[in-house]
């Protein structure tokens, strides 16, 4: 069962990361990047690292996406 969850999440994370790269609009790419972070949270939790999972949930899916969005907001018009 655990192996199934791991495999499913692993494939989902790879697919979302692939979509994030191929995406033509940058805000969508950032949202998909947050999805990669959420998948990583599930993987960390299943692999018995809840401390890392908590950190990844807050920093990987929250604060880093905020920084990307803020950078995009300020650089967007100069592109």
């Amino acid at each position: 069962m655990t192996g199934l969850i791991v495999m499913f999440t692993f494939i989902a994370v790879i697919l979302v990361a692939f979509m994030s790269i191929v995406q033509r609009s940058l805000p969508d790419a950032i949202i998909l990047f947050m999805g990669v972070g959420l998948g990583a949270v599930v993987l960390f939790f299943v692999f018995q690292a809840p401390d890392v999972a908590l950190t990844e949930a807050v920093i990987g899916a929250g604060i880093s996406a905020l920084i990307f969005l803020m950078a995009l907001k300020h650089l967007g018009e100069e592109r």
Partner: protein
Amino acid sequence: MNFKRDIPSRTYSGFALSALFILTIFNILLESGVSKTQRAGDALLALSGKEGVANAVTSVVVYFRGFDTLGEIAVLFIAALGIGLMLHGDRRTEHEESNYILQKASKLLFPMIMLFGVYVMVYGHLSPGGGFQGGVIIASGILLLLISDGSFEVPHAVISVLETFAGISYVLIGLIGLLVLDKFLGNFLPNDVAQMGRLFSGGIIPLVYIVVGIKVGSEMSMIVQNLIQRSDDD
């Protein structure tokens, strides 16, 4: 605003390499199996029981690697300092109105996020979590307030007092350990193994994690405020 970009053709050859990489990782996952994940750090896990801390990760991060944690805190402090220096001064003056649902929901959610952050920070030695995670959760609560209420400002005087207090007390706890036990960050408070699992257990470890949480929370709040409240006219 135009966010379109072109994908170079070599990206697709990069995908082929990535596929190879993924196959290798799948191979490793299948061979090792997910049941045999508890191999690394057995020695530290055996040691961590002696400090009377239920969460082994906390006893490693705060006690066995306590000096490294002090260095990490210093790195975060320098990062906050750099962002403050770079984005200093050019605050935006006009406030954007956020939508009604965000305004009301943030008032409802903010106390819960704060409570959860403090819980994660204080119970770091018993359950997953700790100072870093709790501090960042508190900063994300501040972020919600900053997004929803354009006129909200993080009180600068309170933050500077909290951060100074936290930084000084971390070093002071370490120095008291050096005086009493001849070891920097020595565990000089009672850390009876029989008390393991209680809130007041583990000696200095919960104290250090609370101090780390206060410092990380105040620094991340200032970073978030600097990023959000930057003026748009440059």
